[in-house]
């Protein structure tokens, strides 16, 4: 696949090249084809036979079986040759489009995987707070800071790869909804002394948060090719 990408060929030059080959193939077989056409048209008393007679180099005996076979063979050769050329053009053109599409899908998947990884990191830090996995205020603030930084990266990845990802507005909203909830909820706001004083747990917040992060992950998975 890499070699196809390295070959930077403009399609119109390929068609010119193939047209030249077609012209030479046609020239080498023209006498046989012209002879056949000349005979057929003359049988129908069509004046166009005169045009093709000009291409006949040697006088021939149409009734000679070998000559007939030779004419038919040359006509078939030219038809098969031209057909093969067109098939080749079609294959080459299709292969280029296929490779381009495959490269675009690969690029998109790489970025979606990066976003998914970052969402998992974000989830890890949020879960720490939800599990009350902190010993003091300093640790709590450090985790909160990491929560913010990790989602910043998710936003940056989506913003700077918008053209590659091609996510719908609904998909982007689903992803940003996670942080819309987390940023404004108690887990990011309540001071540590108050948590101890009121013996707060975050069970309700956990119930509301989990579906949101799952939906955000699904956006990444569903958009992968």
């Amino acid at each position, binding site marked *: 696949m890499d070699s196809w990408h390295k070959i930077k060929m403009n399609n119109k030059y390929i068609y010119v090249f193939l047209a030249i080959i077609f012209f030479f193939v046609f020239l080498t077989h023209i006498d046989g084809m012209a002879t056949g056409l000349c005979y057929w048209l003359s049988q129908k008393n069509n004046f166009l036979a005169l045009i093709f007679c000009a291409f006949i180099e040697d006088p021939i005996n149409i009734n000679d079986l070998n000559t007939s076979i030779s004419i038919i063979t040359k006509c078939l050769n030219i038809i098969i040759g031209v057909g093969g050329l067109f098939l080749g053009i079609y294959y080459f053109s299709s292969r280029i489009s296929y490779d381009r599409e495959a490269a675009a899908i690969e690029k998109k998947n790489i970025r979606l995987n990066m976003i998914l990884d970052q969402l998992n990191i974000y989830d890890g830090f949020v879960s720490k707070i939800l599990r009350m996995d902190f010993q003091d205020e300093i640790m709590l603030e450090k985790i909160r800071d990491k929560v*913010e930084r990790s989602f910043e990266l998710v936003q940056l990845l989506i*913003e700077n790869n918008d053209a590659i990802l091609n996510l719908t507005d609904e998909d982007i909203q689903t992803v*940003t*909804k996670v942080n*819309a909830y987390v*940023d*404004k909820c108690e887990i990011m*706001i309540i001071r540590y002394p108050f948590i101890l004083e009121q013996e707060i747990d975050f069970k309700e917040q956990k119930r509301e948060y989990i579906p949101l992060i799952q939906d955000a992950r699904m956006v990444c998975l569903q958009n992968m090719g």
Partner: protein
Amino acid sequence: MIKKIDVGTEFYHSLTNRNYQQRDGKNTGVGFRETYLSELDTDEAWKDDSGFIILDFTNVKKMGPSWANEVFAYFTKYAKPKIILKKIKLENISRVKKSIIQNELEGGYSREIGFMA
């Protein structure tokens, strides 16, 4: 003539804090609303949906939901999200930042949690 504000330059490039109690308490949503959108804090201002202000986000690097909630969702007590976005037009804003604002408008204004201090 509709006012145009380059938010990133005239206010700040990082818009994350709701009010003075959040994080470093600077460049808050409350501060922005009171500086640039105070005229909209009346019923009279919402009687028609003509444009009031254009916010240019070219130089804004970061926007958080809390700031957006305080600046935009605050006005859901006067009007619906569509009307708010007609009055406060957004320019040069990425789809991600726009979706943050959209989420806040659809979710409504979150009241402050009293025990932040």
